């Protein structure tokens, strides 16, 4: 079965290259037969990638330790679900996953565009297939990234080395696939943008065609980042969720620029403005997804996420340069055709607010990039590799984040072209009153931290703006159609899914800011305890009841039992059981301890336990207990943003009709 996978990849190199060449030549010479051949070859590429993925899954499930990759990332004791996730646990498999997503997306694109976008599809296939060719090359020619390479021991081992304990977590089957779906998904709007630049079809058709793909990619990158944060919080056992680790940064940067793009394309759709800017943003977003991969896999940066150095760096760097050089080169070439007669009535308009929103998002992205590369700059100039960690990002990104939060609230209230005084008064009065009431309430409640007070007030502002948008829309619809209020509310959302789905996503973003403002009030206690000892933290009294050994198949789990009481009333609130796993020595891997935190979570705060038993006997254990205020809001935000995205992505008949009409107009124009 493994050989089927390998030869599928070998064949893939041929079909992907063929698809690229035929599509280009076919388009240049206007040969429909060649274009069709290219398209079919791209479809075959998708099939070959799916076949090689099935082959690798099968090799994992069949415990085929004749493959180095299966040997490295699984063993016989591994459960079904983690055996499956072994697929993307290492460098080679995760690259194959990237290629598989690319191939499948390309396949879907071809099927979606059988009767539309025919002018640009050959270029889209050429761009997508170039990416597939690149990954096929890496998967075949580099030993370190070939998932089907034979084991290097000289014999077939009876058992594998097992999966890193850190990866024994539900995050493992959510975080990498969702993040990769995001990364690869941005390749679709990039391919259409490049196709538009090459073909000179520079209307906003490429934006409309890829709108759902962009939201899809953005959504999965969002979920990938949130699940990654959740995983870090529950698994890495340091009581936090985001460490501004270079690899976290590298998935945050394309998210930021992608978010800017997602907003600014609205101006092009509505006003025909910012054509150059949108092209630049999608090129940057795509390039940043490659940069993220380069950082993760080149070995230039040491991080919890990085794969062992694999020799991939130069290839990924070359690919990054090709994307940037090719993308911006084409953009410069087409500049005269992209220049639009942008007109604006006033700086106080929604268009300008979108631009400021873009500025802030790009400012945060630049800060993140700057913080990631500054250690190298410092080393080159001063000879000292300084660290750029949390304090830097807290102080630099936080003000920009607050500005962004303000714009999230401010933007929907401003009219297009020019906001009149009447417009400002009508739209801002209630949100401003609500914000002032919120500010006063927080002050009365004893909140004295300036940054938190400002952020909390802005959260009230944003939420009240969104509430008013829903309220005004619902009552207006109720008046105009005579529907009941509930029906008006539902139909309001249903008739404009994109807009109201977007507002729900903004509610999710506000909820993430709620979690942020808990940060400064985090409280930690570290103590060694004997069974029966108690420790007080904030409003809690925690009693260490005892600990026990739980022998498992591949590990020894030591579990502590802690009773949590309300400090004032003495009422028992519950029992938590933090654990420490000691994974048995397997193959060449020594025994590895791993922390399983226990969290007592409420919407007000998390009580977070990290436990380390005494290695000699079970007399004493050290605990780190953390009170993390408002943490649950971060995870709830993920659900709200998912809900909002589902609404925004839900098939829309009106949109379909509008698109069909534009497609037919464009077809007529191109025939003429």
């Amino acid at each position, binding site marked *: 079965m493994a050989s089927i996978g390998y030869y599928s990849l070998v064949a893939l190199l041929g079909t992907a290259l063929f698809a690229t060449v035929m599509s280009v030549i076919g388009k240049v010479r206007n040969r429909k037969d060649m274009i069709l051949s290219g398209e079919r070859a791209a479809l075959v590429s998708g099939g070959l990638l799916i076949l090689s993925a099935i082959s690798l899954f099968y090799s994992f499930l069949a415990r085929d330790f004749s493959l180095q990759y299966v040997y490295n990332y699984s063993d016989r004791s591994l459960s079904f679900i983690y055996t499956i996730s072994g697929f993307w646990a290492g460098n080679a498999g995760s690259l194959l996953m990237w290629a598989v997503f690319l191939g499948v997306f390309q396949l879907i694109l071809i099927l979606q565009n059988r009767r539309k976008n025919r002018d640009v599809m050959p270029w889209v296939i050429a761009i997508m297939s170039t990416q597939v060719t690149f990954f096929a090359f890496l998967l075949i020619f580099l030993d370190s990234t070939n998932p089907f390479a034979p084991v290097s021991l000289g014999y077939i081992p009876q058992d594998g080395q097992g999966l890193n304990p850190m990866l024994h977590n539900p995050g493992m089957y959510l975080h990498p696939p969702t993040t990769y779906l995001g990364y690869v998904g941005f390749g679709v709007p990039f391919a259409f943008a490049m196709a538009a630049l090459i073909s000179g079809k520079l209307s906003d058709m490429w934006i409309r065609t890829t709108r759902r793909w962009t939201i899809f990619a953005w959504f999965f990158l969002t979920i990938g980042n949130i699940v990654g944060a959740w995983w870090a919080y529950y698994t890495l056992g340091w009581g936090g969720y985001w460490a501004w680790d270079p690899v976290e940064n590298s998935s945050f940067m394309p998210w930021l620029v992608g978010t800017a793009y997602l907003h600014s394309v609205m101006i092009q759709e509505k006003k025909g403005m910012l054509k150059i800017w949108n092209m630049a943003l999608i090129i940057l977003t795509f390039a940043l997804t490659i940069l993220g991969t380069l950082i993760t896999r080149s070995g230039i940066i040491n991080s919890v996420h990085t794969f062992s150095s694999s020799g991939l760096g130069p290839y990924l760097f070359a690919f990054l340069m090709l994307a940037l050089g090719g993308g911006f080169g084409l953009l410069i070439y087409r500049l005269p055709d992209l220049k639009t007669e942008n007109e604006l009535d006033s700086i106080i308009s929604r268009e300008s607010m979108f*631009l400021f929103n873009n500025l802030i998002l790009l400012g945060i992205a630049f800060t993140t990039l700057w913080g990631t590369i500054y250690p190298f700059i410092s080393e080159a100039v001063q000879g000292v590799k*300084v660290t750029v960690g949390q304090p830097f990002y807290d102080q630099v990104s936080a003000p920009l984040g607050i500005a962004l939060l303000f714009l999230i609230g401010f933007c929907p209230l401003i009219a297009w072209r020019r906001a009149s005084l009447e417009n400002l008064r009508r739209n801002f009065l209630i949100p401003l009153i609500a914000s002032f009431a919120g500010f006063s309430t927080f002050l009365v409640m004893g909140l004295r931290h300036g940054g938190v007070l400002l952020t909390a007030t802005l959260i009230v502002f944003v939420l009240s703006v969104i509430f008013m948008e829903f309220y005004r829309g619902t009552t207006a619809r109720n008046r105009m159609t005579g529907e009941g209020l509930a029906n008006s509310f539902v139909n309001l959302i249903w008739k404009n899914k994109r807009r109201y789905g977007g507002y729900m996503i903004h509610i999710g973003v506000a909820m993430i800011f709620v979690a942020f403002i808990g940060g400064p009030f985090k409280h930690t206690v570290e103590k060694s305890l004997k069974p029966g000892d108690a420790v007080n933290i904030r409003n809690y009294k925690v009693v260490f009841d005892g600990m026990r050994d739980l022998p498992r198949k591949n590990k020894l789990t030591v579990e502590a039992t802690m009773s949590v009481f309300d400090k004032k009333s003495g009422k028992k609130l519950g029992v938590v059981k933090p654990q420490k796993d000691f994974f048995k020595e397997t193959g060449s891997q020594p025994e590895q301890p791993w922390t399983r935190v226990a969290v007592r979570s409420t919407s007000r705060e998390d009580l977070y336990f990290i436990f380390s038993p005494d290695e000699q006997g079970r007399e004493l254990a050290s605990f780190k207990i953390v009170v993390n205020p408002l943490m649950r809001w971060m995870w709830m935000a993920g659900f709200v943003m998912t809900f909002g995205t589902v609404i925004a992505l839900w098939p829309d008949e009106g949109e379909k009709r509008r698109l069909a009409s534009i497609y037919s107009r464009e077809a007529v124009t191109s025939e003429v």
Partner: protein
Amino acid sequence: MKFKRWITVLVMMVLLLQGLSGTAMAVTVREVAGEFICNCGCNKGLAHCDMECGQSMRAFIKTKIDSGLGKAQIVAYLKENYGKEALAAPEKKGFDLIAWIMPFAVVFAGGIGVVKIMSSWIDRNDNDDDGDRDDNDSGDVRGDTKEAGMHDERIENELKDFVW
């Protein structure tokens, strides 16, 4: 004048918030540890490292706090002993000041750029309007028609966005 008034209000609010955030609190181990990374090579922030090295370092910081030293003194002591590589963020002096200034400088420059570009768009729009007025003066109603069309389009868009 209005602009000045708004700036004054903004500055006062910032000062108020600064004042509020400046309310003194006793220095904690977390605050001091937050300024450093762990020196055992684990790359974690000192406040977060649960290895023995991190725990002993935090215990050391606690003894310094208990002995009455302030945050600045402890930070200076640790920096002297472990070098500036141990700091979790660049210092706000010397060459490293660039690290802090650069992001704000870029955003500021970007902001100026955005405002300039938008101003040019506004100017272009004003010029177009002037052109329309000239046409009107000579009895041509194209300007009115264009403006009416723009308003119709605007009303239509706003209504579409608002209800449907």
